[in-house]
């Protein structure tokens, strides 16, 4: 059974349609990344799943129950995008406060607070006021509070925002660890490189519609393009390969061989071997997630935060 399940989910703010019938499933122990431009509806989707915002139409289920109910929220951790912790708290007192609201006993809170702060590298500053924390430290504190009660599902909205490269790597490792513990993680992020490294599956939301969804490997694969490299000093038989119906383009020290539909790379490999050439490099060419995202988004209409064309002013 899917941990997160939405069906024709729609949300309207006045005249603005933030979500237009989004249907999505995220399975248990999966890290799912939701991509999209600003204003595409990513945060709205998360907020509906957490009961912060109510859907206009459709259904949203979390852990098999209606989204936003107290029973479900007990099993959910959340890091909002523009979180604003009360600055009069220290890292320690903030976790104690949120832990109390989550119903975690005093004994468990006292035990878990130093553990969690150590996990995110804030133990040394746990008695400092939040207002003295850097953006990255606040972000790490946000992750600590999201994980504090050992939730089954974790929603992270821009989790690496403001975090330095070392911190990002630590967060990635932490997320992989959480995945190995059987947690389901839902990430909203603009940092596509991060998402590509962390997520199992991604979805692309554009103007409130889920326009693409799938696992990273299948989404980034470019069908029909191979990169071939030969041993140093050997000359690639470009004309002969082209004669066989495979267009070839030099790409630095490699050669890009294009395959038409139904063609296989095997005849090219056979040709090179028959000429006594040593193949040192042969890979199917892939796109980066960023390439795929841009290609997909440009193909679709622009996001809602794109500048609206100016009206003609009367002269």
């Amino acid at each position, binding site marked *: 059974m899917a941990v997160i399940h939405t069906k024709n989910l729609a949300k309207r703010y006045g005249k603005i349609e933030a979500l237009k019938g989004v249907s999505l499933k995220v399975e248990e122990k999966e890290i799912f990344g939701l991509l999209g431009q600003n204003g595409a509806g990513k945060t709205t989707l998360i907020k509906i799943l*957490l009961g*912060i915002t109510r859907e206009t139409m459709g259904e949203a289920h979390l852990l098999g129950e209606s989204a936003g109910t*107290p*029973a479900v929220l007990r099993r*959910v951790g959340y890091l909002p995008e523009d979180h604003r912790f*009360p600055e009069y708290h220290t890292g320690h*007192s903030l976790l104690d*406060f949120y832990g*109390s609201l989550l*119903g975690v006993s005093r004994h468990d809170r006292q035990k878990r607070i130093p553990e969690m702060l150590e996990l995110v590298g804030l133990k040394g500053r746990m008695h400092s006021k939040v207002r003295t924390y850097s953006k990255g430290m606040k972000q790490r504190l946000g992750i600590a509070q999201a994980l504090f009660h050992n939730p089954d599902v974790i929603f992270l909205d821009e989790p690496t925002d403001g975090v330095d490269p070392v911190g990002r790597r630590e967060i990635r490792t932490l997320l992989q660890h959480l995945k190995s513990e059987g947690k389901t993680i839902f990430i909203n992020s603009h940092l596509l490189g991060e998402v590509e490294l962390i997520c199992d599956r991604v979805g692309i939301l554009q103007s409130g519609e889920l326009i693409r969804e799938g696992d990273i490997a299948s989404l980034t694969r470019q069908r029909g393009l191979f990169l071939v490299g030969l041993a140093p000093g050997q000359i690639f038989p470009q004309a002969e390969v082209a004669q066989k119906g495979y267009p070839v383009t030099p790409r630095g020290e490699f050669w890009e061989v294009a395959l038409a539909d139904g063609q296989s790379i095997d005849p090219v490999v056979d040709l090179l071997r028959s000429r006594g050439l040593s193949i040192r490099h042969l890979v199917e060419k892939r796109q980066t997630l960023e390439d795929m995202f841009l290609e997909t988004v440009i193909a679709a209409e622009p996001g809602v935060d794109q500048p609206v064309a100016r009206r003609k002013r009367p002269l």
Partner: protein
Amino acid sequence: MWINRLLAERDRCEFQKKVTMKFLAIMKDSLREAIDSKVFFVMVGLSSVMVLLACTLSFKPQPAELQIENRADEPNELFKRLVWPLNTDLSDLSIEKLQRLGSSQKQSGLHLYDVKGVDALNGSLNDPQGDYLVTVVARFAEAEEAQKVRKDPQETLDLLKNRFGAFDELRVVEVAKVQVASSNNHYLPETPNPKEIYFELQTHPTSATRRLWPHEPSVLFGAFSLSALKNVPLGVQLYVIEDNIINGWGAWLAILLSIVITSFFIPNMLRKGTIDLLLVKPIPRPILLVLKYLGGLCFIFLNTAFVVGGMWLAMGWRSGIWTIGFLLTIFVITYFFAILYAVSTLFAVLTRSTIVAILMTCFAWGFLFAIGLTYQFVDSDSRVKKLEQEKEGLQYSEGWFSTGVRVIHYVLPRTRDLDILTTRLLIRDLWTANQIQGQKLDPTPISWGESITVSAIFIVLLLGFSCWWFSTRDY
């Protein structure tokens, strides 16, 4: 069956424990938030200054002989008044009766019994806890009448013993011994008047003596005399000081600061990025808001308890009088603030703006005060007019303005009633139980049950609407 009941009971206990934990967490959070703001320190500073100032109060007892001089500028002579119950029936005492009696005594200057002198039996003449020998003269219309009493004084002696200083059920002093004055009494005139008999009464203090004994108050350990309260009974001095602080400028300042401090709580909670983190906690939104409201209210209750409790201790220590009514005002002030905080909560939820919440709460405060005052005026005016018209045999009908004020007064919280209740609590230690029970302290008839219920309904309605709004909004 019993296992189910046991399990249900266990779940209920667990639920209560969790709600209490969440409530305490929110209260602690409100406290942290308040401490973080500078206004809190202003409030704590002012509260501490008031308590410390109360610690420097001094109350110097006035000598007993000053209390029998019939001076027009000093109407509060204690010993002079102790004979009033001998001259008039003072059981079932009312304010009006006491006021009439005071003015008639002053005007006539002639009455059956009068205090001629006071001597200390032990200690000094300015010790409220000392025993005194009071010389009382009884004046008779005819010499024969006086002669008859001289022959058989027992009835008069009993009267003196039982009624000297006995106001209603309140005994200002106990009469330990009473006798016809001996010949060596230095208050006896050189030429005896056949119409007069002198008596000697040995008095012993009661619990009331000290608070009715005129004192001279001062602050900063006697450095500055509070001359306006000089020679007034100690209990009245305490009442005036307490009333000024609790019902006067002190309360206004404290409530204004409380409004400012607490008005930040809910708008800050509703800020983008902060509210998201709270709404994803497993607490229904109405409970979250109500807990936040109660957290703010508890904070004010603790602060009020600190100021009033501190002043109560200080004034009790300095005056030797422990007035319970003063302590009870903690609850009245908190209830008063609960009404205003419900208004603040509503506007905070509607607008998410601290400034709007402060302004609207202050406006509501002023409006409720004005309505209470106008109602009091309209009500007494209507009563007079009704009496006048009924005397002329006419049917009295109220104007639209009076009806409007009356309707608004009935449906809105009666903050003016709470002011009156505070006054009554402060004054209750100065009056007798019969007076308090008979509600003769204030001529304004107030239905306390109705008043408190209407205010409670107002709070519930405002909070209910706030909760509904908070629960149905997207954040």
